[in-house]
């Protein structure tokens, strides 16, 4: 058959529709005329001939209809017509449309927003990196701990001996001070081995990148590569930058190139501004940067698999090298290595980044399911109400297929509108930086609605459309033509099962969300109301880096004394102290500690610090710390100015550490040892006091063992200046600056911070999770209550006649209310039981993901259940009261 004639037919029937219609009308009336004429010729009287001709034509309209169906493009035209019907039918129930679309928009919007954040952080591979699928990372595994970093000589051995990798690089990064023509600044600087850029496959934007010849230990060239972002932001994208010099940590380095746009280094949490050859760090003289330290060092590893090799090959290969190293060097003995496909990101980062989004993803998924269930429920109520209409249509010859098709079209239209609304909501959520930063703060991460996000939104909408239309459609299929016409609406009572299951499921889901929110919130409240063991309200602290500022250890003590004196003289200051850790600080300095005489030899200890079980936080503090921070000494004495360099080494232990080292004994006077891996052994310290326990690592966790050492007896390159304000208000940065006077800019790198903020920040993941899950829980509760209201109200409508009969037979209004509410409860109770089971599962999950969640919290669960019960009783009370006020005579007459 000819394509041309088909195309012509399609064109005529789609775009010359009116003419085609007129033509068809003419053709059929001409048919009736000609037929009637033919009958007349056969001798049938004129009127009878016409009547017969018309009758025989079997309804001209129906003939037209089937002819139209035969036309090209009929499918298109029919679908368009179905859409018009659906639109018209939806327009008749605006309340239904608004509720359904708003519900779906919230569900889809929430899901899309969370996916956007996850997409921006977890799913996006590192920019500008070639073939990230072949990149591996490696962790060192000790007896009980996993750490991501290695010593430099170990890295060199892996680098030289590996057969499974085509390249292996060492790197890490930190915030350092810099100075250039623009002025002084803080910048993120990564130090990289010579293979770093080749392994990642990075091409420079301009100039060249650091290569193996720049990073030879002891002969590193003082060069720097600048990030594209920094180049544009700070240097205006000027090509003249290459060849200029700038100063990083007091060292002059020459710019050799610009990294490609988007390249942020190999850690997505901290995008880097500069890259310098790694051996430059050896010249800082700081212990972990030692070029000869094995065991636990300071460098992360990133490698690229050789062609045809797998992660398992690399695991075997590097594992063999690790055990060889373990045999050769005591510092490496007993260590294992774990290789993983990294895409250029370490396990820790991935974990850190994904924690809150993962919880939210589950919560949002539940919310989306709930939204679907709710709209399906609404659609069900609506189609039940339209049973009579549907039955009439079926009786008049409408095909079930077309009725189901119409349901699907209605569902799709609602879902499409919901998706559009959802994208708008997602866009608002994502654009609101306060909200995204409660989920997680990633410097430089972009939150965009890209194609993938939109695909997720539309997938969610498509699933919703199906979910929303299938259930009512099934109901259409089950309508036996005739029964509904006969029974009236009462016939539907027995078939509300699907709806009841939906409401039960909604109850369960909203209980899970509510219980989880209550769980996180109560855990957070507990953390906030528990005394951390130190004052948080009056303290402001300032991070100082005397080592980087070139202040040697003797001068440091002078500097600290000066600071204390200036603080004492300040009228706004009640006291000041020096400490090396600002609690709560999970990453404070920790070490294995021993009762004197039980410590291992230096050779045994080197590189095995993490293998010992009794590990304590070590805070190096000035004598004033205990009074300034408000940590009471419960036994013995505090430090004094006499506990100085020449005096016997002393320590104060926390109650917990005392209990671990000397259970049931008086710790005062006991000796303890903090071994060092290299160099002169540290003298044993005598315990002179016991300090009350503090929540040193985290407000959500029990107090860990802590020991305090006088600042005059242990050397530390980095300290905090803590200042206690006289009045109960936050001391301004100005006061701290006043105390610091004309300190050099490399001493003071960050801004002063109020401890109250610090504490609040620590709880940010919990706060975010609690707020979000709480919001979802509230929406879920609302949706479930609406759903229950629908079920009960409809039940009342369907049982109008029965209830009226009961009333007529003497049932009291109270009895009717009880009857109706009892009906609602039969839906609720199984749902609630399911919800309790779900909440217990959620508790396990949350305990795994967030610190400080103690386990099953009956109080939280009871709170959630009570909230649910109140909402549900309110939802069923309204229709129940309406039922009780029924006038039996009207009710019996009405149907």
């Amino acid at each position, binding site marked *: 058959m000819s394509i041309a004639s088909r195309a012509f037919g399609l064109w005529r029937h789609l775009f010359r529709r009116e003419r085609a219609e007129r033509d068809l009308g003419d053709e059929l009336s001409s048919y009736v005329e000609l037929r009637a004429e033919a009958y007349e010729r056969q001798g049938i009287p004129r009127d009878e001939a016409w009547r017969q001709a018309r009758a025989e034509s079997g309804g001209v309209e129906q003939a037209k209809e089937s002819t139209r169906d035969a*036309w090209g493009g009929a499918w298109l035209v029919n679908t368009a017509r179905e859409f018009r019907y659906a639109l018209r039918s939806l327009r008749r129930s605006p309340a239904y449309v608004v509720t359904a679309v708003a519900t779906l928009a919230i569900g889809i919007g929430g899901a899309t927003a969370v996916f956007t954040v996850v997409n921006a952080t977890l799913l996006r591979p590192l920019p500008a990196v070639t073939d990230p699928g072949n990149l591996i990372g490696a962790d060192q595994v000790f007896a009980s701990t996993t750490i991501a970093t290695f010593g430099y000589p170990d890295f060199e051995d892996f680098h030289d001996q590996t057969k499974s990798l085509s390249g292996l690089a060492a790197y890490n990064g930190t915030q350092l001070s810099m100075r250039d023509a623009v002025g002084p600044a803080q910048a993120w600087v990564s130090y990289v081995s010579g293979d770093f850029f080749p392994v990642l496959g990075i091409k420079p934007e301009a100039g060249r990148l650091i290569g193996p010849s720049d990073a030879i230990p002891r002969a590193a060239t003082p060069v720097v590569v600048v990030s594209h972002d920094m180049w544009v932001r700070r240097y205006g994208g000027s090509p003249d930058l290459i060849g200029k010099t700038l100063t990083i940590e007091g060292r002059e380095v020459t710019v050799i190139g610009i990294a490609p746009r988007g390249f942020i280094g190999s850690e997505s949490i901290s995008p880097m501004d500069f890259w310098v050859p790694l051996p430059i760090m050896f010249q800082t003289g700081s212990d972990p940067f030692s070029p000869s330290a094995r065991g636990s060092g300071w460098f992360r590893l990133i490698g690229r698999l050789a062609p045809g090799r797998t992660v398992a090959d690399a695991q075997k290969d590097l594992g063999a090298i690790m055990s060889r190293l373990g045999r050769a060097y005591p510092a490496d003995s007993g260590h294992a290595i774990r290789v993983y496909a990294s895409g250029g990101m370490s396990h820790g980062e991935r974990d850190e980044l994904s924690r809150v989004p993962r919880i939210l993803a589950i919560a949002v998924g539940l919310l989306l399911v709930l939204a679907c269930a709710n709209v399906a429920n609404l659609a069900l109520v609506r189609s039940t109400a339209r049973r009579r209409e549907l039955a009439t249509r079926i009786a008049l010859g409408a095909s079930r297929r077309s009725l189901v098709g119409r349901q699907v079209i209605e569902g799709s239209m609602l879902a499409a509108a919901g998706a559009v609304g959802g994208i708008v909501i997602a866009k608002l959520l994502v654009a609101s930086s306060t909200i995204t930063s409660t989920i997680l703060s990633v410097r430089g991460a972009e939150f965009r609605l890209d194609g993938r996000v939109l695909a997720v939104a539309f997938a969610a909408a498509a699933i919703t459309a199906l979910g929303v239309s299938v259930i009512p459609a099934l109901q259409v299929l089950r309508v036996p033509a005739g029964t509904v016409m006969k029974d009236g609406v009462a016939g539907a009572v027995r078939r509300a099962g699907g709806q009841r299951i939906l409401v039960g499921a909604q109850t369960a889901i909203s209980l899970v969300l509510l219980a989880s929110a209550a769980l996180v919130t109560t855990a957070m409240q507990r953390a906030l109301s528990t005394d951390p063991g130190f004052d948080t309200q009056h303290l402001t602290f300032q991070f100082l880096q005397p080592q980087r500022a070139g202040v040697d250890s003797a001068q440091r003590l002078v500097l600290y004394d000066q600071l204390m004196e200036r603080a004492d003289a300040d009228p706004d200051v009640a006291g000041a102290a020096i400490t090396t850790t600002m609690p709560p600080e999970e990453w404070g300095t920790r070490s294995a500690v021993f009762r004197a005489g039980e410590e291992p030899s230096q050779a045994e200890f080197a590189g095995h610090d993490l293998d010992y079980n009794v590990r304590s936080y070590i805070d190096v503090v000035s004598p004033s710390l205990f009074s300034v921070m408000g940590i009471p000494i419960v036994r013995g004495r505090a430090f004094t100015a006499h506990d100085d360099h020449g005096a016997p080494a002393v320590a104060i232990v926390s109650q917990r550490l005392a209990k671990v080292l000397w259970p049931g004994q008086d710790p005062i006077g006991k000796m303890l040892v903090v071994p060092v891996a290299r160099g002169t052994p540290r003298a044993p310290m005598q315990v002179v006091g016991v300090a009350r326990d503090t929540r040193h690592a985290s407000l959500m966790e029990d107090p860990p063992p802590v020991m305090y050492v006088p600042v005059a007896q242990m050397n530390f390159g980095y300290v905090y200046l803590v200042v206690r304000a006289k009045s109960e208000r936050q001391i301004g940065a100005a006061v701290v600056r006043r105390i610091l006077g004309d300190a050099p800019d490399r001493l003071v790198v960050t801004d002063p911070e109020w401890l109250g903020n610090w504490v609040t920040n620590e709880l940010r993941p919990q706060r975010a999770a609690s707020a979000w899950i709480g919001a979802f829980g509230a929406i879920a509760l609302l949706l479930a209550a609406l759903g229950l209201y629908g079920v009960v109200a409809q039940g009342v409508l369907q049982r109008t006649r029965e209830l009226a009969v009961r009333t007529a037979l003497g049932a009291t209004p109270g009895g009717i209310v009880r009857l109706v509410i009892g009906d609602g409860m039969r839906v609720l109770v199984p749902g609630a039981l399911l919800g309790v089971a779900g909440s217990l599962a959620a508790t396990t999950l949350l305990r795994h993901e967030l610190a400080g969640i103690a386990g099953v919290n009956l109080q939280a669960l009871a709170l959630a259940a009570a909230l649910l019960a109140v909402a549900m009783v309110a939802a069923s009370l309204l229709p129940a009261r309406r039922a009780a006020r029924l006038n039996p005579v009207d009710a019996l007459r009405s149907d």
Partner: protein
Amino acid sequence: MPSHTPLLQGTLDLLILKALALQPMHGVGVSDRIEQITRGAYTVGPGSLFPALHRLEEAGWLSASWGESANNRRAKFYTLTAAGRRQLNAEAAEWKRVAGAMAAALSAG
């Protein structure tokens, strides 16, 4: 009214093509002609006739134009095209083959 034998799939198209093989005709003509050539076995009402006519026209086997009936009434006339004639021959041959096979099968022992 003659008895109705249900139309086999595709039979109607073939009957229409055959009915129009002699001369162009309007709808009533086609309908009557089919009744005549099937000896009254098939009566085709407008509900199935017109969809088929329009479908065949769109396939390019018929062409349609408005003209005057014998009694000077306006009517739409359908003409078999060259492609339609080829289609008629092909379908008729196929039909004869099937019918022959069926007849042979039914008359076998």
